[in-house]
């Protein structure tokens, strides 16, 4: 994969795990044993291949329409009607403008939907967004005209949109399906027209281990949908289907979160970079239509960094970037090649100089509207770093259960990253620890019935099995989680209990899983390791939150070492516990997260609050406990000027919605308390004009543009297949009974039997024939008569 390295090598070479000789020896051990087998298999394979190749030739020639080119080609989209050309009807181009101020990133995502067909279209696009994005704006732009969207209750927004679509007005609807997945619909795009949709959202910046980071997903990994298909859903669906899955009893909105996938062409601009074998879709798999359609699904990204700190390093693990420092101290970052295919998350990391490493930060924003009383309320965002325990801490014995996802969505690079991470984690075990490994796809298998002592032979056994893991099948996560959380014998609290969950999180029933984790966690702590180019960030973060653990993301094989080191630091170092924040008297504070979680090494206290009842003064004090010692930190409260706290209000409202949703999970969504919470969320989202599970953005143009007689057809805009991933085969059934193989084997075996029966006779006859043949063809020098032949003989 392509990595941007411009501020020195980020991973020292000696830290990289390179395969040793021992590794290769182990890998190719036993090859001598298999040499005979290999020989037999090769002979068989050659015969089969010869027959297969001949058959293939015949088929290709016979069908007439299929050329070699077509065999290489593959295209996902059938344009509706028309001449039956397989072209993507709606073309997509994206541009993200990110502006980071303080601890909030404000992102304006501009997406252009270009109708390349000669019919009126409705574009339906599954829009992946960061899992903690507060979506605060929607706008449509057609040429010079600008239509601003408003937040309405979900059902109402749908009605407004449908009415506008029917009436022939331009309209857009943005619905939340998951906190990190939205559906964007744009109705009545004229033939040849381009409609731009602008989505504006705010997102808190992450700070961990001295590095700020920001993630911008551009596509998604297809989610696995567990459960039984609801039988009568099919008829209802027909009118509104944009997904490949049908609603099931466990994921009733499956069709909304399963967009069609599309394989983007290989980026030619990065041609010089080394590619892992099989990493990107090879040239041979490149869809032909896309070669000509070209340029769809590309994103350009511009970031303006105004952290107020001198930076030591800006980097992006998955993209090549350029940046320069401007005279006002801000940094401007952009993609090196202008744009990139939307097939992987964009991540940006920046690290302040060691001398300027922040210990605390405070940003405030005055509420635009007056608060409850006379005074306006203030929104506040706070970052406080607890003390570091230092290096000499006693390492407690641990019991770790590693859970590795080997479902089909992990195919390709993901499974390699997952295996590499797991092997690294196994090598990190110490005598006195206990461990177990659970592998799951459609079924769950534990390597050992119970956690075993981390002895050499157990670890070796686990390593051998891990190396043999392959990705296929479904993602039945619930049984695996249940098994992992029930591994400890009751009453045994002598060990620190940890569950490390390595997955891409590609499931549709996230909330049911959070409920499971919440209910069954007991003393354990759950850590998630997000794998792949487009992991489900929502699952990763919330599972770790409910599991009272932490989360890391690995998007590239080169990142395994660095990210796993960060995880080990969290697993092995003492926690900061019993955190409590004391606010000055007289202030009414509504802060989120409601209860401060325990912190792992490198993590700061991060919260957003709304403050009523007085101006900001005094100081806020943080108390906690680390490695058996009490500590106290305080920070002077004061207002930050110069608009550096813009957007905190939205971030606060978003955090409050999340907190209410979490409570809803505990009381049940359809209980009375759950409905009350729904009402609160709805009101909050309407007040702050945010998208939420119960509110959507809708924008409608007054003017009717589509002529009466013409219809509008729906065009699902596919999402790009995440880089390095293999699409699952589940959609296509196996459609060969293997008749030819059977017949061929039968013929071969019977022939062999015949040969064995009459072998000796046959051999004799064959030899005789051969001798006769040779006699006839090869001239006999003894009986040479012709002059020329005689000459030849003499010459010898």
């Amino acid at each position, binding site marked *: 994969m392509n990595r941007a390295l411009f501020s020195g090598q980020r991973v020292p070479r000696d830290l990289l795990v390179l395969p040793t000789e021992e590794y290769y020896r182990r890998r190719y051990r036993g090859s001598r044993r298999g040499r005979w087998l290999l020989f037999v298999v090769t002979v068989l394979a050659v015969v*089969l291949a010869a027959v297969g190749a001949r058959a293939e030739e015949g088929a290709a020639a016979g069908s007439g*329409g*299929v050329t070699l080119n077509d065999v290489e080609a593959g*295209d996902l989209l059938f344009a509706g009607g028309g001449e039956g050309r397989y072209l993507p009807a709606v073309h997509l181009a994206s541009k993200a403008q990110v502006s980071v101020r303080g601890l909030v990133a404000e992102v304006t995502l501009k997406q252009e939907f270009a109708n390349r067909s000669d019919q009126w279209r409705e574009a339906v696009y599954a829009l992946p967004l960061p899992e903690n994005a507060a979506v605060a704006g929607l706008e449509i732009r057609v040429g010079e005209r600008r239509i601003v969207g408003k937040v309405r209750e979900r059902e109402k927004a749908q009605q407004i949109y449908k009415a506008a679509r029917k009436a022939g007005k331009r309209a857009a609807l943005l619905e939340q399906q998951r906190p990190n997945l939205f559906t964007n619909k744009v109705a009545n795009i004229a033939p040849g027209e381009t409609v731009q949709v602008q989505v504006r959202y705010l997102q808190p910046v992450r700070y961990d281990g001295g590095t700020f980071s920001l993630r911008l997903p551009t596509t998604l990994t297809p989610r696995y949908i567990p459960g039984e298909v609801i039988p009568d859903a099919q*008829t209802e669906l027909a009118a509104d289907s944009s997904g490949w*899955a049908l609603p099931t009893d466990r994921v009733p909105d499956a069709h909304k979160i399963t967009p069609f996938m599309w394989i983007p062409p290989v980026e030619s601009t990065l041609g010089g970079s080394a590619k892992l074998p099989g990493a990107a879709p090879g040239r041979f798999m490149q869809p032909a239509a896309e070669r000509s359609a070209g340029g769809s699904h590309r994103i350009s990204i511009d970031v303006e960094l105004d952290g107020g700190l001198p930076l030591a390093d800006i980097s992006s693990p998955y993209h090549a970037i350029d940046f320069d420092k401007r005279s006002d101290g801000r940094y401007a970052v952009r993609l090196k090649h202008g744009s990139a295919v939307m097939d992987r998350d964009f991540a940006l990391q920046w690290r302040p100089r060691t001398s300027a490493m922040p210990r605390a930060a405070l940003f405030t924003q005055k509420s635009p509207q007056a608060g409850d009383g006379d005074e306006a309320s203030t929104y506040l965002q706070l970052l406080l770093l607890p003390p570091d325990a230092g290096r000499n801490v006693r390492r407690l014995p641990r019991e770790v259960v590693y859970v590795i996802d080997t479902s089909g969505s992990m195919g390709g690079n993901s499974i390699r990253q997952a295996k590499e991470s797991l092997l690294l984690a196994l090598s990190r075990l110490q005598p006195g620890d206990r461990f177990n490994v659970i592998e799951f796809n459609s079924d769950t298998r534990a390597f050992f019935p119970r956690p075993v002592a981390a002895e050499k032979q157990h670890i070796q056994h686990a390593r051998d099995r891990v190396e043999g893991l392959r990705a296929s099948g479904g993602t039945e996560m619930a049984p695996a989680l249940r098994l992992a959380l029930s591994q400890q014998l009751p009453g045994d609290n002598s060990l620190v209990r940890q569950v490390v969950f390595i997955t891409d999180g590609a499931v549709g029933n996230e909330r049911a899983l959070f409920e499971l984790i919440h209910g069954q966690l007991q003393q354990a702590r759950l850590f998630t390791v997000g794998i792949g180019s487009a992991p489900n960030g929502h699952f990763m973060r919330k599972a770790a939150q409910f599991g009272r653990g932490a989360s890391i993301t690995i998007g590239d094989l080169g990142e395994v070492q660095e990210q796993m080191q960060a995880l080990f630091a969290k697993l092995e170092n003492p926690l900061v516990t019993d955190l409590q924040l004391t606010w000055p008297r007289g202030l009414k504070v509504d802060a989120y997260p409601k209860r401060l979680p325990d912190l792992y090494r490198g993590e700061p206290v991060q919260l957003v609050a709304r403050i009523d009842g007085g101006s900001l003064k005094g100081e806020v004090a943080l108390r906690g406990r680390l490695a058996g010692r009490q500590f106290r930190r305080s920070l002077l409260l004061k207002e930050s000027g110069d608009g550096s706290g813009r957007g905190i209000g939205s971030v606060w409202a978003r955090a409050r919605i999340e907190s209410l949703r979490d409570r809803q999970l505990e009381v049940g969504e359809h209980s009375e308390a759950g409905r009350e919470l729904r009402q609160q969320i709805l009101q909050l989202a309407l007040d702050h004009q945010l998208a939420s599970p119960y509110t959507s953005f809708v924008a409608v143009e007054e003017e009717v543009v589509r002529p009466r007689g013409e219809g509008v057809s729906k065009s699902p805009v596919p999402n790009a297949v995440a880089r390095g991933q293999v699409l699952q085969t589940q959609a296509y059934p196996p459609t060969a009974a293997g008749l*030819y193989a059977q017949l061929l084997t039968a013929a071969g075996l019977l022939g062999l039997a015949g040969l*064995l029966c009459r072998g000796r006779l046959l051999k004799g006859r064959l030899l005789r024939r051969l001798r006769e043949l040779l006699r006839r063809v090869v001239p006999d020098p003894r009986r040479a008569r012709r002059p020329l032949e005689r000459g030849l003989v003499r010459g010898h």
Partner: protein
Amino acid sequence: MLRGTLFAACLLAGLWQLGGAAWLLAKAELAQYLIAAAWEEKLSSGESVEPWPWADTRPVAKLQLADREPLMVLAGGSGQALAFGPGMLPASGEPGEARTTAIAAHRDTHFTGLDQLQPGAPIRLQDGRGRWHHYRVMETRVVNSERERLPVFAEPGLLLVTCYPFGAVDPGGPLRYLVYAEYLPGGPPVQL
């Protein structure tokens, strides 16, 4: 001695394979007759009839490709269903519904010679109520099933899926041969 054992083993295994192949073909042919009978009964009585007492699948449509023998289409794309007849995949829509109808079958039994279907060829599909739906072949295409999903869309249409290449020996290959036929809403209604 060794030779004798080997001979016997080869002969037995060979006969077993041959028998297996014959059984596959017989099953595919015979089941179609039984299912066709059950289908006719269902159309006349209106009730779902199982083709044989222990059947784990049921007919959902009748498919006629150009002027060939009609094929009975079963529900689901599982291996059991496909052994007896073409299967209507679970993700697809009913005939005539605004969702692509996708039907898959084995290239070596029911969909032998699917590659001879040229663009323009007519296809008929009878639904559970006896109505015939008409389609016209628009395009054929080879796709790699490891990289793509079934293109099912919110429009009526028919998608036939089988393995590719047709004569290949290996049954587990990733390539699929697709035939896409557009729906003809004004097709002549044929009464039974």
